């Protein structure tokens, strides 16, 4: 498979497995990736109700080591990473000086001088170049782009802890695994190179993300499937990964996040710490915060009531669909789908901060549809406290 410009697509250690097991393969961020196996809705339900496996090897992993990393990295991130305890993970954005978002990412502090930046596949080259440029001449910062040799498997769902705990490699680490809180991680020395076990995910479910050397990926994948038969484990494609992240309203770069607007507008102001720090983009973000962000992210439900006021299935407002306030353009949809869990046509949209949200409509195939503003997350993430807590 090749992309339209004939650049050969990259594979992961699991590409052949996906093909052999009936996955529909698509080009994604330069990789040939599985978009679905059984079907989006079935895979979505498997993760909400049981446990699913994701090959997310396409993600970028850049290691940063040395005594200078803490201060240097803090100067690139909108969220605070200095002062993190070992084993802690932080969600952050990196911004341009004007506040536009270069990417959103996870920052791992694995040890005192041992850090990892996990960025989106679609932005990997940009971020690798950005951090390399920013590290030039900085003492005590050694970068090592481990993306090509690192595979990443996510185990997500209510049964993720049970399944992950069965892995042979983790038998000696049962206590560490049990103690692993949301957004923490530990490194595990292995014969082929260390694994990183991280209690993170992009589904709103309890789960883990496992970073392993490429050679360990296929045996690990097959072990998880073999061990999880009674738990109902199954592989999950990128299409369900998207609907799973959409319900808890996790941002996706290229949708909710862009170089063309700021993290404050995109609704991740909680990951922007302006006080007592300096980082690239801080001045612009402080100015915008003081003035009030010109746009904001809102949750929308496309409404299609019949004559009796009963809701009928509504069309999906997809990325780019124009949003109007009365007759005036007010913004655009960043993501939209029919929520598989809730059965409603929902969307996230970036709209003018001042617009009257009671008068919004969205244009789908040349027709304006009334929308209701609804709070997001559309579905509360089930990641803290009891993973089986009622929704």
């Amino acid at each position, binding site marked *: 498979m090749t992309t339209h410009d004939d650049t050969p697509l990259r594979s992961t250690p699991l590409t052949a497995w996906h093909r052999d097991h009936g996955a529909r393969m698509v080009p994604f961020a330069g990789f040939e990736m599985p978009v*679905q196996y059984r*079907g*989006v*809705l079935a895979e979505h339900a498997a993760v909400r109700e049981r446990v699913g496996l994701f090959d997310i090897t396409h993600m970028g992993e850049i290691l940063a080591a040395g005594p200078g990393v803490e201060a240097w990295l803090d100067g690139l991130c909108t969220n605070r990473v200095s002062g993190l305890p070992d084993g802690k993970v932080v969600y952050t954005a990196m911004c341009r000086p004007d506040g536009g978002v270069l990417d959103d990412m996870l920052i791992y502090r694995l040890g005192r001088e041992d850090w990892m930046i996990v960025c989106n596949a679609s932005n990997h080259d940009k971020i690798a170049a950005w951090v390399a440029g920013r590290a030039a001449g900085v003492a005590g910062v050694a970068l090592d782009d481990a993306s090509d040799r690192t595979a990443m498997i996510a185990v997500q769902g209510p049964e993720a802890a049970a399944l992950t705990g069965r892995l042979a490699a983790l038998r000696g680490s049962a206590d560490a695994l049990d103690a692993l809180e949301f957004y923490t991680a530990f490194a595990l020395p292995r014969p082929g190179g260390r694994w990183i076990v991280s209690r993170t995910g992009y589904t709103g479910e309890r789960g883990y993300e496992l970073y392993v050397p490429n050679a360990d990926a296929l045996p690990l994948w097959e072990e998880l499937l073999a061990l999880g038969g009674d738990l109902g484990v199954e592989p999950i494609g990128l*299409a369900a990964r998207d*609907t799973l992240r959409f319900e808890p309203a996790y941002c996706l770069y290229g949708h909710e996040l862009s170089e063309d607007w700021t993290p404050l507008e995109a609704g991740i102001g909680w990951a922007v710490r302006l006080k007592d720090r300096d980082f690239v983009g801080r001045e612009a973000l402080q100015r915008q915060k003081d003035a009030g962000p010109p746009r904001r992210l809102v949750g929308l439900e496309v409404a299609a009531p019949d004559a009796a006021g009963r809701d*009928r*299935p*509504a*069309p*999906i407002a997809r990325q780019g669909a124009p949003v109007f306030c009365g007759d005036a353009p007010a913004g655009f949809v960043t993501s939209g*789908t*029919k929520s*598989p869990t809730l059965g409603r*046509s929902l969307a996230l949209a970036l709209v003018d901060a001042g617009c009257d949200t009671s008068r919004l409509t969205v244009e789908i*195939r040349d027709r304006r549809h009334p929308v209701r503003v609804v709070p997001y997350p559309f579905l509360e993430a089930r990641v803290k406290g009891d993973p089986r807590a009622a929704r």
Partner: protein
Amino acid sequence: MVASDRKYTKDHEWVLAEGESATVGVTEYAAHELGDVVFLELPEVGTVVAQGEAVGTIETVKSVEDLFSPVGGEIIAVNEAVLDAPETVNQDPLEAGWLFKVRIEDRSEMDDLLSADDYDALIGG
């Protein structure tokens, strides 16, 4: 092997002619390839359409595809039940998941459609 009681289009629709009425739906192959249908737009009853005209849309989580009228004529019925339960198209595309009925204006247009054998060959069956 696809159902032999009806004709087909290369857009993966089936057409079942009964008297002057043609019932139209999507094939099992299309229902499988499209994936989970979440929304349908069907033509208004009374609309007169030409053969091959786009008359509606079928929307899945992934994509939106046009629906075409395989023959020309007046739309005489639409399946209101699938508008409320679009998943019927996936569950039973050939029967309960029918989409609309056309009063056939020109019977010769039926000859433009694919036979079951031809359609089977088209989808590599």
